[in-house]
């Protein structure tokens, strides 16, 4: 069999915890980030985190801080890290949330069918991320990236979904999403 391409064996969350040291500075020791702008990884579906790490390593998702870390990860490391973060309870990230924007954001989320893929409480599943309770600044940056076609997504679904959004829609949406419990 191909020696150059040994795939990951079954993911090990405990191994993931041991390997997560370099991630903790930004994402928190248990994947609950506290720095504004940094995404929380706790409680994200395993498949989602694993796909993102692959995309960072392949250069399809670019970030000056993440790329150098991801380039060093093997397939097994990615599977272990994704399993570890999926198993951590997520905490809310309500810092900066403007509650006056929440109603508009909720309407926009319904109008644009966010729940079709991200599920009713925006908790995500499989390759689709949990949005509920994510960091406000990160959400704004990512949705703007999809709108600008600079944030890579797996099959284009988010890039298409973001096209009709005006910047005030993006802001309202992000305030609403960040206000939800994870």
């Amino acid at each position, binding site marked *: 069999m191909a020696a150059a391409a040994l795939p990951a064996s079954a993911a090990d969350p405990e191994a993931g915890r041991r390997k997560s040291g370099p991630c903790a500075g930004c994402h928190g020791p248990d994947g609950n980030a506290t720095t504004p702008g940094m995404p929380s990884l706790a409680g994200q579906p395993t498949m989602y985190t694993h796909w993102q790490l692959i995309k960072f390593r392949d250069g399809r998702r670019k970030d000056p801080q993440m790329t150098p870390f991801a380039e060093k990860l093997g397939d097994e490391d990615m599977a272990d890290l994704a399993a570890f973060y999926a198993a951590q309870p997520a905490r809310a990230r309500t810092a900066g949330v403007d509650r006056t924007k929440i109603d508009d954001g909720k309407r926009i989320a319904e109008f644009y069918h966010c729940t079709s893929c991200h599920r009713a409480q925006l908790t995500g599943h499989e390759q689709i991320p949990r949005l509920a309770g994510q960091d406000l600044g990160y959400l704004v940056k990512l949705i703007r990236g999809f709108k600008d076609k600079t944030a890579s997504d*797996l099959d284009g679904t988010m890039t298409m979904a973001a096209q009709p959004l005006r910047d005030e829609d993006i802001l309202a949406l992000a305030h609403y999403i960040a206000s939800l419990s994870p």
Partner: protein
Amino acid sequence: MPFRFAAHVLVVALVLAAWAVQVVAQQPAAAPPPWKQGQPAEMANSPLAPVAQPPAPKPASEIPLNKIKVPAGFKVELWASGINNARVMIWGDKGTLFVSSRVAGNVYAIVDKGGQRELKTIAKGLNLPNGIAFKGGTLYIAEVHRITKMEGIEDKLDSPPEMKVVYDTLPKDLPHGWKYLAFGPDGKLYFNIGAPCNICLPPDTHANISRVNPDGTGFEYWAHGVRNSVGFDWHPVSKELYFATHARDWLGEEVPSDRLDVAPKKGLHFGFPFCHQGDILDPEFGKGRSCAEFAAPLLKTGPHIAGNGVMFYTGSMFPAEYKNRIFLGQRGSWNKTQKIGYRLATVTLRPGDVPKYESFAEGWLDNNQPWGRPNYTVQMKDGSILLSDDYAGAIYRISYSR
């Protein structure tokens, strides 16, 4: 004065904000994500959704080969594993197997060194690069928006040459934007431009099979009304084009059937979006139309079964009755409660009679849960076949001995 001015601005802002909210509230609903488009309102809470692609291939030790059932005399072995999202396979002149992927964005090369197979990633970060073809030392790659080529690639697997654009006057729509790519017997490159939706009246530029010269000149449409065909081949004798098509979703558990078709001449229309499976008018786009206007399917292959690879068998290893039989990889349904497909089927053409349609290899579905999704086949020199599995990231070899 400053205060009054600020208050005035505030009033205007409030009025504008109220207006914006009203506009949102009064508009008809925005377009749903492509996979949900065309879903009737009464099915809004359906749990059916596309099967998620795993981020990593299955380790060889976790691939349950013994679950795959083939006819007596045939044998299945794991030929290669660890190939993320393995899709179309094509041989180079010097024995390299090139393998495409879709959402993984990679193109791979597998070099067989005396039974030791080495996997190299020769391109990454591409836009759903499903289509690959090879001719005269050059590998052609079809992404959503362009067809490119790598010249002399087999001598440069460790430092692949630049991807030169062959043709890029293509729509950029992502739904059904990924392509199958193959050289026809006329030396032209054939590929699909799928419908940019589940169900819609597509622009004239979409829902077809097209062809272009390998130097990028002479683009033309070959077949129309083809929702999305990501697998085709030409009959070894008649040289006619046979292709598989995925039919629309959300019309029912048992309809419409996917189809296998033949397009012996340019310009035929195969019905999308007006008529499905040759005999069902679309509830919205079929109004005032008749299925008699369109080419009828050669074979209804089953609802949502997702036929991908189409390959005429021309080898001599398999029993004589397999000669010129079609191998049809069926990646399997998602828009159906009881899943079907997840198998390799065969179609035997019988002039003057309906084709004979049989399951050949199955077992990738376990209690309605897939562990693998068979896709495309390619023949080996000895007449055995390789079968790709994009879900498990594996390639199987199927051989025969009496």
